[in-house]
């Protein structure tokens, strides 16, 4: 870095005896703390927007890193934000990663020079547990004590000087939102980073442990759980002593504000009513409020495409730019409003403490299927769009529970399936009723939603008993006190997520868009016979349809015809099916092209509906019957036809195999269900 060896006159006071370790580079500081201790707020206050988010290599644990200017920029530090931790015993992936960071085992990350332990003053005992574990590593620790004012309101008096003396480490009170204590924290950290730390574990000095305490072994002597449990006990005993000396305890009989709020929000009856209300609001927002900006984005990209087509000479480059790149990028960006809204809600629900309550209320229900209570929100969001839903599954800590949730999320009928349902119903079931008053169309749509949920439940049940089988992890979850969210943190979080989505999913989606475009574009038809009778508009449509039929995609449609024939589909539907693996709603525009009604027709335009009704197979029989339409709808409920989702699953699971497994098993299921629907229907005399 640019910083030279600091000359002595720039050294901070009290550092005269300290060897300068910052030669040739910056410090590495790690930020550790319990979930809900105010770690993110402090991280943001220390680093501002100078932070980057990635994954630790090979795993899905998020790696957040920022740039901290200590004492006004003269000394700088890489600030590593460790995942929220209750313990360092390496039982979860988060804990394992944190331990690796502290031991300097993570590639391209030096062992931290100092640790900042974020400690919530209102929950001192349990927060100090992690601190005792941190102290057992050979790294200097500084405590950043948060929520002091809240503690004072609860008449908890904390003697920070005494606390510091008892723990033998600096304790700095901070108020991250007002930037109070930040300067002092920087000073103490700088000082600490330059001292030689001696691991501290007086609490473990009992006879039982002494033979275990050599540097290598102390963190890893976990094979014998009796010893591990004794250590936990010893740490808490030490903490209890510290607590009694440094804190004047409050009157425990008085109910806290959180408890009062909880008497309503987790009430046996009203709690559920309110939960449903909140979930409906989230769902409704993602589903409908995002529509307007999504439409605008969609139209914007359409207009951009038209503009480019008008301004540029016709040819392959323009086609690639308009139909491949602009359409592909547009297809990604159009999801942004939903993603932003979802993460806005997620952050608010998480930061206020409500998410834990929702999981508490619904855990019994979800555990019947083998899922965690927190799986509810991702699944609900997936009714709007599986992409934000799958991203929301991050809140589930257990990796296998999270994977099971991700694997079933796309069964929830998302908004992209609606155009397909609508077209099929408009063409074949419009105006029909059941029992004289129930619209058949509405019943069918409802049935499609129900089918998705039903299959999801079964698949989750099977997955959790086979490949995702794991001993049920202990369900021990903190119900944090209710707090007002910090809006800076909420918005920052929202934009970081959105940026990640664009970067990671976007690149994959763009690549697949271009491939799919090429499949429908090549090889070029040579015969463009001008028929003098047709007008230009018509001619264009015929050409486009002709091109599609002769393209690789068209040929592929012919190739797969024997496979899809048992579903009642001809090769033209096959072409539309292939194209719809990019995104479900593409089926509508592809059918429009293939039936030569112009690709700008939508699912409600009469010309397309009539074209579908009148379409003939090559042998002259009708291509569609109500049974074919129903079969297609069933196929669409279950098939994984959304490359954006595949890209997001790839990113969220950090593995192509899970993404491809999802495509595979869902498509097989869809095929089987469609087969049963069609053949069963024919057997019963329909179609």
């Amino acid at each position: 870095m640019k910083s030279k060896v600091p000359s002595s006159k720039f050294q901070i006071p009290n550092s005269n005896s300290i060897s300068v370790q910052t030669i040739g580079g910056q410090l590495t500081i790690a930020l550790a703390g319990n979930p809900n201790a105010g770690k993110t707020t402090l991280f943001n206050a220390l680093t501002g927007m100078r932070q980057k988010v990635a994954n630790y290599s090979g795993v899905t644990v998020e790696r957040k890193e920022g740039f901290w200017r200590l004492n006004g920029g003269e000394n700088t530090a890489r600030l590593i934000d460790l995942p929220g931790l209750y313990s360092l015993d390496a039982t979860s992936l988060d804990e394992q990663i944190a331990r690796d960071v502290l031991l300097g085992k993570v590639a391209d990350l030096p062992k931290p020079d100092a640790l900042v332990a974020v400690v919530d003053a209102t929950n001192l005992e349990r927060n100090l547990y992690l601190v005792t574990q941190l102290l057992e590593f050979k790294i200097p620790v500084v405590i950043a004590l948060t929520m002091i004012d809240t503690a004072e309101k609860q008449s908890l008096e904390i003697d920070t000087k005494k606390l510091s003396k008892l723990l033998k480490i600096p304790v700095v009170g901070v108020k991250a939102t007002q930037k109070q204590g930040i300067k002092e924290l920087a000073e103490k950290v700088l000082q600490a980073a330059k001292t030689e730390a001696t691991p501290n574990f007086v609490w473990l000095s009992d006879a039982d442990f002494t033979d275990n305490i050599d540097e290598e072994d102390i963190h890893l002597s976990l094979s014998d759980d009796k010893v591990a449990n004794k250590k936990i006990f010893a740490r808490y005993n030490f903490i209890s002593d510290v607590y009694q000396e440094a804190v004047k305890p409050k009157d425990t009989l008085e109910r806290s504000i959180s408890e009062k709020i909880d008497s309503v929000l987790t009430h046996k009856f009203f709690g559920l009513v309110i939960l449903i209300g909140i979930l409906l609001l989230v769902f409704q927002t993602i589903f409908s409020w995002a529509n307007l900006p999504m439409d605008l984005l969609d139209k914007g990209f359409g207009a951009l495409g038209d503009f480019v087509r008008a301004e540029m000479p016709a040819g392959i480059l323009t086609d690639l730019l308009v139909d491949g790149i602009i359409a592909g990028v547009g297809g990604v960006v159009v999801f942004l409003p939903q993603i932003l809204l979802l993460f806005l809600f997620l952050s608010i629900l998480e930061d206020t403490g409500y998410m834990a309550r929702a999981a508490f209320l619904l855990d019994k229900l979800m555990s019947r299927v083998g899922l965690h209570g927190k799986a509810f929100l991702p699944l609900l969001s997936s009714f709007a769009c599986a992409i934000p839903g799958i991203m929301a599954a991050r809140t589930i800590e257990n990796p296998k529970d999270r994977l099971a949730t991700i694997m079933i999320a796309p069964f929830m009928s998302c908004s992209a399936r609606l155009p397909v349902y609508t077209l099929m119903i408009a063409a074949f079931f419009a105006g029909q009723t059941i029992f004289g008053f129930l619209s058949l169309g509405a019943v069918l749509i409802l049935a499609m939603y129900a089918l998705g949920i039903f299959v999801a439940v079964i698949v989750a049940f099977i997955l959790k008993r086979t490949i995702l089988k794991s001993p049920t992890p202990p369900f021990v979850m903190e119900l944090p006190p209710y707090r007002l969210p910090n809006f800076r943190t909420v918005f920052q979080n929202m934009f970081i997520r959105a940026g990640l989505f664009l970067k990671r999913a976007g690149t994959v989606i763009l690549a697949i868009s271009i491939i799919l475009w090429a499949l429908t574009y090549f090889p070029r038809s040579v015969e463009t016979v001008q028929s003098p009778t047709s007008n230009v508009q018509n001619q264009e449509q015929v050409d486009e349809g002709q091109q599609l039929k002769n393209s690789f995609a068209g040929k592929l449609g012919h190739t797969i015809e024997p496979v899809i024939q048992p579903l009642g589909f001809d090769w033209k539907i096959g072409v539309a099916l292939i194209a719809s693996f990019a995104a479900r709603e593409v089926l509508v525009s592809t059918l429009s092209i293939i039936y030569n009604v112009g690709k700008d027709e939508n699912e409600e335009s009469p010309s397309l509906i009539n074209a579908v009704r009148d379409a003939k197979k090559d042998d002259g029989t009708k291509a569609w019957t109500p049974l074919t339409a129903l079969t297609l709808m069933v196929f669409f409920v279950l098939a994984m036809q959304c490359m954006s989702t595949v890209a997001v699953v790839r990113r969220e699971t950090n593995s192509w195999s899970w993404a491809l497994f999802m495509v595979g098993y869902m498509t097989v299921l869809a095929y089987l269900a469609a087969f049963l629907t069609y053949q069963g229907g024919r057997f019963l005399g329909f179609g």
Partner: protein
Amino acid sequence: MNLTNLPIGAQAKVVAVNGNNAISKRLMEMGVVPGVSVRVIKSAPFGDPLEIRVRGYHLAMRKNEADAIEVNEI
């Protein structure tokens, strides 16, 4: 007596934390160690999980975990 059998609102002292390693370790890490006092706050709408108060904060656990906690009512 197990924590599961404790009536809502009752206060008790933890005597032992049993159960398999994963459960006992997790519970103890969260501060439920022998000697600490706990209070049962409520159960969720479908009867499970339970909410308890320990060391000044609130903790939810399934009955399966609560069964592992041996207590003496105070």
